[in-house]
């Protein structure tokens, strides 16, 4: 069971990371277009559409990846202070009430929406048109991965309800990785601990 959960975690992570690399493409594409437009004086009409597509693909496909690592923003007034079991019960309920209907509807509707676009081989509205239907297929595909990851999260909630603690997740880079930052500026835990004397000294004075 645990293995299956981890496998799906890894799939979501892999997909999200793979499409994450589009940010490098986006940076280079626009920088090149800026150079081409302002220096070489040859703008390209298709770049505008291409950059929108790259951005859309980037964030849509990273949705499941973000969910797999708990990266979607939560209202944290109460949640952080709850017991794990309470957290899991609440999450389980809301995954069923909000997440599943919402994402299922999005995936289903997206499939039809992209299918319509594919039927007419829709292109972008531009002097240099690009095919638009692959971009629209991103909606159901991203929705599918989210749904899959959502089911994994539901399984996690159930496990947590049973065990009383959250099952582990696959490791990933963190935005504020304190250990990495400490290493970056050469500060060691002992240094911080040694500072305590100043704090104590100051408190003694007051």
């Amino acid at each position: 069971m645990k293995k299956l959960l981890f496998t799906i975690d890894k799939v979501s992570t892999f997909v999200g990371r793979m499409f994450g690399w589009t940010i490098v493409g986006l940076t280079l594409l626009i920088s090149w277009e800026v150079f081409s437009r302002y220096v070489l004086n040859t703008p390209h009409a298709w770049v505008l559409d291409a950059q929108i597509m790259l951005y859309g693909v980037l964030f849509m496909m990273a949705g499941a990846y973000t969910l797999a690592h708990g990266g979607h923003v939560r209202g944290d007034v109460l949640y952080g202070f709850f017991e794990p079991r309470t957290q899991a019960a609440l999450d389980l309920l809301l995954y069923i009430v909000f997440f599943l209907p919402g994402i299922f509807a999005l995936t289903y509707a997206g499939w039809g929406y992209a299918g319509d676009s594919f039927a007419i081989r829709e292109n972008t509205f531009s002097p240099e048109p690009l095919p638009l239907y692959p971009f629209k297929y991103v909606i159901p595909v991203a929705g599918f991965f989210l749904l899959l990851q959502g089911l994994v999260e539901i399984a996690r909630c159930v496990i947590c309800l049973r065990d009383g603690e959250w099952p582990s997740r696959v490791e990933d880079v963190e935005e504020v990785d304190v250990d990495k930052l400490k290493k970056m500026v050469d500060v060691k835990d002992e240094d911080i601990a040694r500072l305590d004397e100043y704090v104590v000294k100051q408190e003694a004075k007051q």
Partner: protein
Amino acid sequence: MKKELRFGFALMAIILTAVVLFMPWGHMTNGHLGLLMLALIVVAIMLGFPTAFTLMGMGVIFTWIAYRSVNPDLAVEQTLDLMVQRAYGVMSNDVLISIPLFVFMGYLVERSNLIKALFHSIHLAMARIPGSLAVATLITCAIFATATGIVGAVVTLMGLLAFPAMLRAGYDIKLSAGTITAGGCLGILIPPSVLLIVYGATAGVSVVQLYAGAFFPGIMLAGLYVAYVIIMAKLKPQLAPPLPMEERVIPLADWVKNVSETISNKSLPGLLGALKGKRNAGVSSGKIVRQLIIALLPAIVWFGAMGLTYRVVTAPPEVVDTQGLQEMGAADEGAPAMESQDSGGVQEPQAEGVQEPPADGVQEPPAEGAREPAGAAPAAKPAAPAAQAAPAPAAQAQPVPTWFWLTFGIGTGALALFYALFTFARLEVFKMLLSSFFPLAMLIVAVLGSIVFGLATPTEAAAVGALGGFLLAAAYKQLNFGVVRDSVFLTAKTSAMVCWLFVGSSIFSAAFALLGGQEVIETWVLSLNMTPTQFMLLSQFIIFILGWPLEWTEIIVIFMPIFIPLLAHFNIDPLFFGLLVALNLQTAFLSPPVAMAAFYLKGVSPPHVTLNQIFAGMMPFMAIQVLAMALLYMWPEIGLWLPHTLYK
């Protein structure tokens, strides 16, 4: 029960009680349903489920209810259509596209690891100011946070660098903690910030104008922080004792010491003297020349800039190209507008120049005038046929306007003063700043400048900024695959977080509009007969209160769509409102219990520093934020002057 839980439950209970009491349960209209949805979403968000999906789920359910009340047969189909269109709208939104790019730039800059050098050099440059360490912390935060925009990382890094330094120097714990947390949040306000893009996308306000508008309020807030710290350090020196002399000493190389003792301790005459070989300094002249060039950099930059301005203001008036504007003309016109900004906002140098007495024109070297038309002609030629070329010979060099000489004189005087005080120790500090402060400042200025002056769209500037982040990381020898990979993955996650929130809120607000919740709120607000001032105060107060339990992303994407349509009734500029909101949401980071900044600092501080001390330290800075809002409200020009001057 824990204190924090009680607080949250109390808030929830208040909302639910209000709903139960005020809902006209007997005769519910769709509009009331909309309000119910709004109340429920606040409660649901507080339960802690990922907000994007809470919004999406609730939006779908209520959209279906709204459609069903009209035509039950079509309801499901219409709901699905609306959902997918809203999602696609976010995917093809050309404002939000700059978010991943700015985020990516931020991660790259953060990982280029220049914060240590930045803090150190700014600290040395500020050594004489009271509370120098705290002031340096604020300035470092402002610059670094502006470039990265990642509150957590900035607070953590400054907590590792500046907090120990301040504690060792005997600074008050609360003051130190407040400085770091408040400074770390400045990046949210000072452009290029993601908050302003999110607001712009939600409210339909131009991001360019928001950036231009937020620039001075951001600087003002940072300035108020600095002023507060300096005043505190002056009034109560025990809170921020001055640095002992021995810590201010800047180590100099032996030959430099030698020169400064034997020839002059001022860098310029000292280096010149050493170069002449008046006294043997014992170093190769190449080394001295290199130092000399660095020492002369401010002068070179100043005279170069003034020379360029001179060229631009004396250039003959543009030959108007009737064949349609091309890039060349646009770029040329942009340049004088920029220069005029430098010289204290004198507009349109060309028009100004015409009114000048021709006597000034005599000072003009003829060579310059002869070169200019030659340079201008090719630009006009390809497009303009022979008949239109007629005005070209008439184009003459403009006389030099007075303001130019005035600026030139004042600037040169300041430069002379600078060199009179420019000792070898200061040269050393200058060199440190040159390698840490200026590259970052230039990146920010280039990105921001090109957006604000209309040379590039925010998207283009963001992409070039990200490329600049690459170069910066490369320049600090931090660019490797690991850094890029981490930045890419983090960018993917952060963009997904923000943009999926938009997908959710876009569906949610569609449901809200379908149910007519907006109309109910509008009729209700208008029935209160508020003055614009009262409305402004009330709305800002509500946002302030919401900042306690919610994060800024949630506040903007959920509540701005409700406030923005009301602004028109009260004749409030959405741009101005946005600036106030951006200032206001600064408090959201510092207000307990969700004050992210405090928790990040706590994570890296010595164990005896308590959260309560950090919270207490943040309070004065929150008061300053409120003061800054009041100032901006009383003098809207602080924010609106720049956008109004630039985009009339």
